[in-house]
């Protein structure tokens, strides 16, 4: 066994002790139970309070486990929960843009489509929930990659059309643009004649948990190859509305 860090071990011991019963504990009780000087404990407790793992009761001055720690293991947002919370906003997005609306999350290097609203023209359309899109060649995927702390892309980048970004360096530049603007565009990079726009959905901690966007014919969304910014604002409005909803 390699070298261990004593203060981390002590922090872990404090957390275990606070988790062992429903009671809040004061510094004196912690010091007695752990056989440590109060001064040492104060420093560790201050740090744990700052990261949100421990809270101090303002009335008694005693300590208990913090909300951040309690949410640590359950921070994953269920995709079906996300669909339920987003469904009205996705309908409104499809209604306003008159295009199909899509919500996706990252799944093993692909975009998993978790919600799909038909384009409201009553043409024959097939529900695409449960299908996958390539991350580098879709607007939803670019948003998810741009904000993904692990940055997982499947290499090599598969070309789908002549516009697909197949070079990792160019993709990185594109993702930088997505982060700067707060939204992504995909211009006939997956299917000839189709264009898509997407924006990030964030949870209450500001972590991106999904992307919402629209997809449609290039002549409607980007005549002469230039995106109508009106559509971008519809998408960003929907993303912000869901983000607000998730924060509640």
């Amino acid at each position: 066994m390699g070298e261990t860090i004593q203060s981390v071990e002590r922090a872990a011991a404090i957390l275990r002790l606070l988790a062992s019963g429903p009671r809040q504990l004061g510094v004196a009780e912690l010091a007695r139970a752990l056989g440590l000087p109060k001064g040492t404990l104060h420093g560790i407790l201050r740090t744990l309070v700052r990261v949100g793992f421990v809270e101090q009761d303002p009335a008694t001055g005693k300590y208990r486990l913090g909300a951040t720690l309690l949410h640590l293991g359950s921070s994953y947002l269920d995709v079906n929960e996300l669909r339920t919370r987003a469904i009205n906003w996705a309908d409104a997005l499809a209604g306003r843009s008159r295009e199909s609306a899509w919500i996706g999350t990252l799944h093993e290097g692909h975009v998993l489509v978790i919600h799909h609203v038909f384009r409201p023209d009553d043409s024959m359309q097939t529900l695409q929930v449960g299908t996958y899109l390539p991350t580098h060649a879709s607007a939803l995927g670019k948003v998810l990659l741009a904000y993904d702390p692990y940055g997982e892309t499947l290499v090599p980048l598969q070309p789908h059309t002549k516009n697909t970004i197949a070079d990792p360096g160019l993709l990185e530049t594109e993702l930088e643009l997505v982060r700067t603007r707060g939204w992504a565009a995909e211009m006939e990079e997956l299917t000839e004649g189709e264009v898509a726009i997407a924006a990030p959905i964030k949870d209450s901690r500001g972590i991106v948990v999904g992307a919402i966007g629209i997809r449609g014919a290039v002549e409607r969304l980007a005549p002469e190859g230039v995106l109508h910014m009106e559509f971008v604002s519809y998408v960003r409005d929907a993303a912000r509305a869901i983000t607000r909803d998730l924060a509640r």
Partner: protein
Amino acid sequence: MPRPDYVAAIDQGTTSSRCIVFDQAGHIVSVAQREHRQIFPRPGWVEHDAAEIWQAVQGVLADALGGLDGQIAALGITNQRETTVLWDRATGQPVCPAIVWQDTRTAPLTHALAEHEQLFKEKAGLPLTTYFSGPKIRWLLDEHPGLRERAERGEVLFGTMDSWLLWNLTGRHITDVTNASRTMLMNIHTLAWDEELLAALDVPRAMLPEIRPSAEIYGRTRGGFPVASALGDQQAALFGQTCFAPGETKSTYGSGSFLLMNTGHEPVVSKHGLLTTVGYQIGDTPATYALEGAIAVTGSLVQWLRDNLGLISSAAEIETLAKTVDDNGGCYFVPAFSGLFAPHWRSDARGVIAGLTGFVTKGHIARAVLEATAWQTREVVDAMNADSGLDLTTLRADGGMTANNLLMQTLADVLAVPVIRPMVSETTALGAAYAAGLATGYWPDIDSLRANWHKAAEWRPAIDETAREQEYRNWKKAVARTLDWVEQ
């Protein structure tokens, strides 16, 4: 550019009142909501304070219409059905708490009325149960000394929630024909109060509102815009889903579920445990009827799995849990928590999980929970097809559970017809807005409403007939095992 204008709808529900403003395309422009108290004075009793509800409705009207002054073309009303309000004609104040549709205090009274069961079935189209307003009125007149005499003199008035709101908004004592069809006092063939039904329930005619169509200009608000529709909530959803042709059917998935099938201009008296109700009546055109099947426990079974078993932490997670397995593992869940409703009507039944083996996991139970909603829908659809002689070709689904993809797919599989979710999920308020807009010429005709209706999603059947029939047989065996549990 012409000045944009809108139609507003009040949705006076069981737990809250909402006001939603729609534009010409049927898109939502603004929403306001206020909750009101649920009063539980004794086990089985549920009351509302009608004055508090009127306050809440005024509040949501002000909130939703704020800034849109002068741009409202019409106001429509949709409401919780059957809830019974009595008020003083002179003061306009309620004389007692409103008895809510869920309240079961009239159970002994309905047993005592059993000799009239056939009369209610034939003339009112309704089974003798505690939901409907007539027995609630009778109970109040019996229990409150002096009330009957005042009702006979027309000093105390009765109304369902539509009537109470119309009284306050327009000063008229009227009700719409769909709400009247839930009282057990209206003859569904003549659409008028019926002397024989009134006599059977001993309700004085002088206290009853005038029955009007669901869509016409009833009067004007103090703000000056026309109040032009009233529909019971399920009928409003049928209208909002634009089920205008015979055979068109909607199903609303909430805690319980309500299926309504448009049966055209003739009332169909059910031989299969459904009830006959008025769907809507636009102006002086003939009324459109509907068959209705109510399922007591659908979404509330998912909540039960969450709250009572703790298998999931949110209702949406049922889908995640169900998808951990490929099928139900041989397990079937019949949630007859308070007996079986349509089409069985067996109060002696209680819930069963059948087919358990050592193989069954919580994932299989989650599947069985979702399938329970689908099979209960299938039973009601079979009854509707048999009663109406029409064949369901698609099911228009709305309500919170339509967010559950697996449930929607299972419904399509089990019903063997496509299941469609419309773009605007607020079909109840939309239906009231549509009716009010038709009455005032905001929308020219029902074809313009059909043009507003768009598919948001469609699920097509994906299992073969052999598998479907085998599963249905198993479900029926599980249903049989719920019966004769309660010893009466």
